[in-house]
């Protein structure tokens, strides 16, 4: 779709890294979720040489002991810390009501389900100690659960902390139990807390309950999501199978406890590693078999179906065979063949295969020895898509067809999940013992704010579709454009003729836009990055306004070296175009138009505007992104408008060494932006609204305590009397809720401009959802805005509409985008620096959109 096409058109199509796919597209399909879901498992029990989970001897084998509070607790806890940050109570103007009123009400169906609890519901937290002390969590659990007192109660236990939904008779209870070996163990259970349903701890317990329930529906947890291997979708043509599944969460929304679920898919290849290896060896011959196998396999994620866990292949040990023995945790030696026979009842067929080695993440964070798991290739299935497959259009299409669900399809899947939960006897029992009632799907009322008019030089146009107004403005003059008098084109010898015709086209499309393009100086060079860079170094002088490079291939080194040199060493705007793009004859005009628009922006031009009722408003976008090259470096991008019309942009970018994605240098950036504004407008802006993107879970507090003071101090220092008023909004593109409109019998994506500020929002925050995109396929996901600081005191209505207006101002796309334009600009800037230049861009370029 758009994102990709745009990338191509600019000649910078590169292998779609996870960041690119996730960010650029903000894909409405769950595909990206499942694709990026390839982290190696860090779950509790592995088949490993050093730590092999063994069956507990005898009758105390514990079936339901698996789930604990600690397990996978990381993510939950980080979300929890965010929830404890109550920003709304400090904002007087929204304390009572944070809802807007303008726009046409629209009824929306959500992917949230009511969870009802009795009024007086309590969770009881107990501490359990053992005497004599027992290490094994399994044994601890088994001993505790064997007691009659607890057998009928709803319970969750992690080895130390026990949660019950009913109070035990005594505050401190002493129980004793007997192990298989006949030892008597005394257990002391002490009540530590009584928790109301609103407590964050309860949310964790609810998540655990739902984990158990999904397990009962024969779904397996892989990564963070739950998948159902029993109903795979097969794509035999590409040897793929998709496991359907869900991402789930339980949390407190505005007034209610809600269960949210979103459809997700796990992509698996119907090929074991062993098959893959033999295939490879047939193709390449035995001589270099080991090398090619290592080259192709190392780094891939495999799934072992006997326990549905994922592992990354870190190494291949060719010296170990399945007939070799390894030491189990209890010290006994066993061969791999026997182990799999005993443990999983699997017979290995190939006794000469090597073993795969996977490093296990150290959960306990002690710097002890490295733990490794040995895996049998025959039992490992490849997951995800291979590198070359992502460029295989047919394959991607086939996958997208299955995974990109229509609104109706999505709703059907959700309804089925809800149905399963309510019908399954075990699931229902689990819920009932805890006193929970799984209710109906929630619907709520949103509002569709009025559509925006686009202001172009000589008139105001009301686009037919807010998604794409390129047709509406085909013959219109843009707001302002510098004429391009002295510029350079560097191309390879082969691309000479196509370059010529492209330049003609560029001149032709430029004229009606108001963008005057003179004849450039054309340099022909050899096809290698060095030749391009030499030519640039040789012919760029201070008068050159822009350098255009017609790249012979999408090899990253061309783009990187050109951008690095021209954005920091010798600051001149540059435009890279793939020669391949220019070969598409039929599309020449539209390609040339897009490139012309982009070039105007890079020269400091303005394309269009929307009406902004607030005079003297500065909007700021901040994004943070990890540097692709060196670990521990993050790139912080800052973009702010320098005119009240919000058409000119000032930018700063810096690389900082830190582990957290928190920006250090905001004071300098903000002061720079205010200086720039002052220079242009001879005064300071009255209001500043900062949109902060790239915030992870659990960072809200840091943001409030560390970033906002930086912004505030530069704002207050800017002026002695009345300093500009500041608001800070956290923007998140990934959020669980989805909204669909019901039209007649079917469901549709809501129209752009749909705002949701009730029901699915949080009581402790001043937050809202905004749908500012249109998609023709799949289901749209809303963008979530959380106003964490607000001096401006704008009415919620105005804040929402302003945010929607800003989604119209991204000059790289003549249509709506999913985030406010300054955020997208900041993202583009950080992406360029993190992926290509790895160096702070020169300040001489700070006033143009050179990073588009």
């Amino acid at each position, binding site marked *: 779709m758009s994102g990709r096409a745009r990338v191509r058109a600019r000649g910078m199509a590169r292998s779609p890294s996870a960041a690119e796919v996730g960010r650029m597209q903000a894909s409405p399909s769950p595909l990206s979720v499942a694709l990026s879901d390839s982290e190696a498992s860090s779950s509790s029990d592995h088949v490993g040489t050093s730590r092999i989970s063994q069956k507990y001897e005898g009758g105390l084998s514990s079936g339901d002991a698996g789930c604990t509070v600690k397990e996978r607790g990381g993510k939950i806890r980080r979300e929890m810390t965010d929830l404890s940050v109550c920003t709304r109570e400090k904002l007087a103007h929204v304390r009572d009501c944070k809802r807007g009123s303008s726009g046409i009400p629209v009824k929306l169906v959500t992917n949230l389900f009511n969870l009802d609890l009795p009024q007086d519901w309590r969770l009881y937290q107990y501490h359990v100690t053992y005497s004599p002390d027992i290490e094994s969590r399994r044994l601890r659990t088994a001993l505790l659960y064997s007691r009659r007192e607890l057998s009928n109660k709803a319970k969750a236990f992690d080895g130390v902390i026990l949660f019950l939904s009913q109070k035990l008779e005594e505050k401190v209870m002493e129980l004793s139990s007997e192990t298989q070996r006949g030892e008597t163990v005394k257990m002391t259970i002490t009540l530590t807390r009584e928790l109301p349903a609103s407590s964050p701890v309860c949310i964790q317990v609810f998540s655990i309950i739902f984990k158990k329930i999904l397990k009962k529906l024969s779904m397996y947890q892989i990564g963070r999501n739950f998948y159902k291997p029993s109903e795979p979708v097969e794509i035999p043509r590409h040897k793929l199978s998709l496991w359907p599944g869900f991402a789930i969460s339980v949390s407190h929304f505005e007034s209610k406890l809600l269960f949210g679920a979103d459809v997700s898919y796990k992509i698996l290849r119907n090929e074991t590693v062993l098959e893959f290896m033999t295939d490879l060896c047939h193709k390449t011959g035995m001589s270099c078999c080991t*090398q090619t196998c*290592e080259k192709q396999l*190392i*780094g891939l994620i495999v799934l072992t179906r006997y326990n549905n866990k994922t592992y*990354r*292949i*870190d*190494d*291949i*040990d060719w010296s170990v065979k399945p007939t070799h023995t390894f030491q189990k945790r209890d010290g006994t030696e066993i061969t791999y063949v026997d182990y799999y026979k005993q443990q999983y009842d699997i017979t290995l067929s190939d006794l000469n295969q090597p073993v795969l*080695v*996977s*490093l296990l993440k150290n959960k306990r964070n002690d*710097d*002890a*020895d*490295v733990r*490794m798991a040995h895996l049998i290739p025959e039992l490992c299935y490849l997951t995800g898509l291979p590198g070359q497959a992502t460029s295989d259009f047919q394959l991607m299409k086939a996958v997208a067809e299955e995974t990109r669900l229509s609104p109706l399809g999505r709703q059907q899947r959700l309804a089925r999940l809800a149905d399963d939960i309510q019908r399954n006897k075990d699931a229902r029992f689990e819920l009932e013992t805890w006193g929970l009632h799984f209710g109906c799907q929630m619907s709520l009322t949103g509002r569709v704010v009025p559509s925006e008019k686009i202001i172009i030089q000589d008139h105001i146009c009301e686009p037919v579709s807010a998604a794409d107004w390129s047709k509406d403005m085909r013959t219109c003059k843009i707001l302002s454009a510098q004429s391009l008098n002295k510029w350079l084109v560097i191309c390879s010898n082969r691309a000479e003729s196509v370059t010529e015709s492209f330049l003609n086209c560029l001149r032709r499309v430029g004229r009606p836009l108001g963008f005057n393009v003179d004849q450039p100086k054309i340099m022909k060079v050899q096809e*290698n*990055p*060095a030749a391009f*860079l*030499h030519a640039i*170094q*040789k*012919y*760029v*002088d*201070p008068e050159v306004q822009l350098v255009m490079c017609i790249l012979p291939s999408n090899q990253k*080194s061309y783009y990187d*070296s050109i951008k*690095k*040199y021209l954005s*920091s*060493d*010798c600051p001149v705007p540059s435009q890279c175009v793939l020669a391949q793009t220019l070969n598409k004859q039929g599309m020449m005009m539209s390609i040339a138009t897009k490139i012309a628009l982009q070039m105007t922006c890079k020269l400091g031009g303005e394309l269009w505007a929307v009406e902004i009722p607030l005079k003297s408003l500065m909007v700021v976008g901040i994004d943070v992104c990890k540097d*692709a*090259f060196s670990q521990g470096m993050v790139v912080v991008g800052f973009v702010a408008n320098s005119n009240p019309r919000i058409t000119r942009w000032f930018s700063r970018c810096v690389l900082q060494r830190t582990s957290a994605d928190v920006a250090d240098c905001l004071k*300098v950036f903000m*002061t*720079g932006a205010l*200086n720039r504004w*002052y*220079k242009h407008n001879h005064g*300071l802006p009255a209001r500043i609204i900062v949109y902060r993107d790239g915030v992870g879970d659990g960072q809200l507090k840091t943001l409030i305590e560390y970033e906002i003071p930086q912004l505030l101090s530069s704002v207050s*220092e*800017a*002026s*002695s*009397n009345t300093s500009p008023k500041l608001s800070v909004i956290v923007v998140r593109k990934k959020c669980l809720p989805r909204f669909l409109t019901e039209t007649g019998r079917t469901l549709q994506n809501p129209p752009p401009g749909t705002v949701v500020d009730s029901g699915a929002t949080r009581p402790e925050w001043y937050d809202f959802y905004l749908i500012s995109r249109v998609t023709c396929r799949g289901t749209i996901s809303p963008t979530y805005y959380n106003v964490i600081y607000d001096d401006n005191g704008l009415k919620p209505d105005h804040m929402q509409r302003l945010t929607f207006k800003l989604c119209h101002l991204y000059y790289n796309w003549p249509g709506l985008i999913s985030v406010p334009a300054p955020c997208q600009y900041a993202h583009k800037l950080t992406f360029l620096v993190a992926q290509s230049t790895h*160096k702070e861009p*020169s*300040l*001489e370029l700070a006033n143009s959109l050179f990073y588009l």
Partner: protein
Amino acid sequence: MPNRRASRNSYYFFVQEKIPELRRRGLPVARVTDAIPYCSSDWAKPVSTPLRRPGMLVPKQNVSPLDMSSLSLKSDQALLGGIFYFLNIFSHGELPPHCEQRFLPCEIGCVKYSLQEGIMADFHSFINPGEIPRGFRFHCQAASDSSHKIPISNFEFGHDQAIVLQNLYRFIHPHPGNWPPVYCKSDDRARVNWCLKHMEKSSGIRQDLELLTVEDLVVGIYQQKFLKEPSKTWVRSLLDVAMWDYSSNTRCKWHEENDILLCALAVCKKIAYCISNSLATLFGIQLTEAHVPLQDYEASNSVTPKMVVLDAGRYQKLRIHRPGFSHFSSSNQEQRSNIPTGDYPSGVKISGQNSSVRGRGIIRLLESISSSSSNIHKFSNCETSLSP
């Protein structure tokens, strides 16, 4: 509004230009009127309009009439002739702290350099990294793929570690006596040091070679020459330049043929180029083929003065904007306000000026910062002057 407009004269615009600088100093100036008291002293200073003289070569003695010549010349001689070695060793990634083996050395590059002569000799070799610790193949492979791309196993050019180390020591130190100073970038120091120790251990050769950082070297040279300390950020940006990435005769043969940028030899050579280009020129040394890849350099020189010297003008401009550079920029500003006839290129004449000014008075610093914005245009002329 109307009466304010009436009062606009050249002083108004002068003050207006100063406002950003004043703000940076933390002064509460919202409007021109607020700023007037802070600007009057600057206004009183004579301002020289520098002449643009492209291609002007500044003779050494002309540079600083006020030079404490004998002293500085003597140390100059010592500096110019002094021989440094730049060393780098690449590894297949870095293994986590709990591993015994932290690095897997795979390529080494070293150059012998002096300001006067440029690169006098170079040394390069691939190293056999040895067995990759079990389980870390992916880690190492990924690290290699994202940087130097040297194959992690079965690489035909990898030499035995002991032999490489012997050759390196023979290169650095062919004759008995004191060891010359060996430098590498501060970011690489831990790795290079570890690799040297590791290779010493495995080969049984022990030479306690002291590894210093290039950044300190640059600061040292600068300090000795100009009696001023440049900012670390400036030094870092001086050393991190993309312009020679593809220069001929910079990378090793293998990296050149495979067109991979990161090469241990190239890193060392580029340090030499950067130092030649920015520091050696300040000593008035005629740059030769040994200092910088001259064919690229000359070609660009004729067409585009803007890029001949990347550091001087550009970084001075940067310095004005960045608070971190304020120290350094003070030296340039200083001389402007003191020498009315200052038509020398700013990059060159610094030394003389500094000798006349002592200490780092905060007032002068502030003055110099405030005056900096008005003479941005001036630095452009130094770029041409540094060409041979």
